[in-house]
């Protein structure tokens, strides 16, 4: 398929996944606040600022807002047009990418994505957000799941499909790592975490909820929520669909299906890096993760994901886009008859 089209599908998928993760993250944290008492300004800033930091947007945030209040952070993460990673902007980008490759996606998929786009940009969305933020996020999540369902049910399993999968899972791995990173400041820099207070346990539950992981977690680990178990579940569990290992695994498989190369073989850098990441995750223990320090480990992981993304671009999408000047020169040279 056209390189440009592959690129659009990949990014459309990434942006949809990004929006859904933002919706879950903000929704959960808004609800979390309901469980606390005595929330002063400083406490609120401590609650919200790490979320912005984990997204890597701290600098951008402070350019637009003086303080990390709930209102400022949620505005930044959800609606802010100047924040390209905000929920609304992510949906706009997804839809724009979809529009450019409309002929590649089915009519039902376009309709639903377009409907979501029209909704988040409508006054009704703002009103709903003001009166009942939870309902607003429900709509966004429901729509995103609808889109996933339509994609699964109607799209041909061709090359485009695997670019969509690659985009989704690379974004998911990244976002799960960032959600997990939100409370790193309560942990020791290296070494296993100690006992957590009840308030901290609530925050770690919120992390699980942000990944829709609480029920699955409990079925494996019981009612006790600890940073060690949560990290183990979200990084190393191979059966939970939002965990990093699961995502890396599906990313790796998608890459292979694009090039057609069999298991155990490689055909490009992206496959090499993805395969290595899966192997590392599969054969690591949580103790090894905390030995490095959770935050450092996640930082390194995010960099690895970036490298895979770049390698993917190099392999399939980058095809010596020379500048117009250079190309014209090539043409003139070729056309000389003497």
């Amino acid at each position: 398929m056209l390189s440009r089209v592959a690129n659009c599908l990949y990014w459309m998928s990434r942006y949809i996944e990004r929006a859904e993760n933002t919706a879950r993250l903000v929704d959960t944290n808004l609800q979390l606040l309901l469980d606390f008492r005595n929330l002063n300004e400083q406490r609120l800033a401590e609650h919200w600022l790490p979320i912005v930091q984990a997204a890597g947007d701290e600098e951008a945030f402070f350019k637009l807002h003086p303080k990390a209040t709930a209102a400022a952070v949620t505005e930044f993460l959800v609606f802010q047009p100047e924040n390209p990673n905000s929920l609304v902007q992510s949906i706009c980008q997804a839809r724009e990418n979809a529009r450019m490759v409309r002929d590649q996606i089915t009519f039902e998929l376009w309709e639903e994505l377009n409907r979501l786009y029209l909704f988040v940009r409508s006054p009704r969305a703002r009103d709903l957000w003001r009166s009942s933020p939870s309902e607003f996020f429900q709509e966004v999540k429901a729509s995103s799941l609808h889109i996933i369902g339509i994609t699964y049910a109607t799209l041909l399993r061709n090359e485009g499909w695997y670019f969509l999968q690659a985009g989704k899972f690379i974004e998911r791995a990244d976002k799960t790592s960032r959600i997990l990173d939100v409370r790193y400041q309560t942990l020791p820099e290296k070494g296993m975490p100690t006992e957590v207070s009840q308030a901290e346990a609530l925050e770690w539950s919120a992390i699980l909820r942000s990944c829709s992981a609480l029920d699955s977690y409990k079925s494996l680990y019981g009612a006790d929520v600890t940073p060690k178990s949560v990290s183990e579940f979200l990084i190393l569990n191979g059966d939970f669909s939002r965990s990093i290992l699961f995502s890396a695994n599906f990313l790796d498989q998608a890459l292979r299906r694009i090039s057609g190369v069999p298991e155990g073989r490689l055909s490009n850098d992206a496959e090499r890096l993805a395969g290595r990441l899966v192997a590392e995750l599969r054969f690591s223990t949580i103790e090894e993760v905390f030995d490095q320090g959770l935050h450092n480990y996640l930082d390194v992981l995010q960099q690895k994901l970036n490298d895979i993304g770049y390698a993917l671009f190099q392999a399939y999408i980058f095809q010596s886009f020379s500048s117009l000047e250079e190309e014209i020169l090539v043409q003139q040279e070729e056309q000389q008859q003497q």
Partner: protein
Amino acid sequence: MNGTRYGSCNLRVLKRYAPESFFDEMYTAAGEVRPHYRRIEQCFTGLNPEEFARKREAVDLAFLRQGITFNVYGDSQGTERIFPFDLVPRIIPHREWEHLERGLAQRITALNLFLHDLYHEQRIVKDGVIPPFYILSGKHFRREFVNFSVPKDIYIHVCGSDLIRGADGRYMVLEDNARCPSGVSYVLENRRAMKRTFPGLFEQVGVQPVDHYPQELLKMLQYIAPAGVADPTVVLLTPGAYNSAYFEHTYLARQMGIEIVEGRDLLVRDARVFMRTTKGLQPVHVIYRRIDDDFIDPTVFRRDSMLGVPGLVNAYRSGNVSLANSIGTGIADDKVMYYFVPKMIKYYLDQEPLIDNVPTFLANEEKDRKYILENLDKLVVKAANESGGYGMLMGPHATKEEISLFRKKIEEDPRNYIAQPMISLSRHPTYVNDSEFEGRHVDLRPFILYGEKIVIVPGGLTRVALRKGSLVVNSSQGGGSKDTWVLYGDE
């Protein structure tokens, strides 16, 4: 006398209005419903206002959700608008359509012969039928393509010749669109919308289908592929997602099952065209291009074009890629050339035109110019190479300033202006002001394919000027559209 015909229904939606001095598609001058509209009239009078409103909303919502929109240039939000769709179809009886089909086929045959002649022996000029000055000063005459043989000798593959009807009910050709005529996607989507909204009606009435257009278009494109290619790769070249007709480009590409590409997706090496894919470079043999000549190759035409493909023209010349429409057809869209089309039909086919031109005056001819300048307030003046309703003066509706502005323009550059009497376009019942039916002016753009044979989609796009009294039907200036029905029978 006639009143009782309508008195039987209690809550009528479609009410009669006075045709006045215009030809009305649905009503005769005496207020009777024309035979081919009777069944539609019955259907609409059977609807109560709530049902009708619901149907309208459903169609609008479907169009918006599907993104059947176009971008309006100069709109600050850069937003997309739905091309307004009116539910009352425009109906053409079989016999009338047969006549139009013959006339349009005659016209496109003459135009293709003209273009071939123009780019080869130029007999029509040497025999004095068209003064050479008009050709050589034509903005879109491509000297570089003289004596170049185009695939299958076809220049215009897709043409949209706009038809209007005067007060006497006679059809006339308003203008030919031989470069990138757009609108056929609306024809196809409007038909789908009507079928969903009035399902039983189609069975009853007997309407000729239109959905074979994409297959016919593809057949034509494959027909013109370079010789010796067993399974030619056909692509559609679009300016990109910000073009006002982008929806149509993606729609047609999808319906035909071909790739849609932008200039930057293509590459020319050794005078062959390739597309950049995830598996490397794939050869391209036929390009249905929706980009104007000026922008199609920065090494030949406009150097600043970012939309084209460097080296494409060279590949075209080498015969390694075919283009539809060919390069150089823009001269046929020149409104001054339009003036000569009846002469072309006579010269190449030895026939009288089956469908007349609108009477036209050339500002470059002294006698005509005198007449034009003396009657600016009564005429429609058009620039020879503008489209979309821009660069036009509607004399009877213009201010003194506008008229004197055009006077100056004509005096400075007479070659590039023509004038025509203002034709009272025919009118058609259209739902307006969210409450009632009134007559609005309409035209018709049929779509003509010229390949191994000539294929014309029954009907075409009926465009309607939604503003009261307006004669400008273009989408960019407040126009809408209707479904067009060509019946199997005459009523």
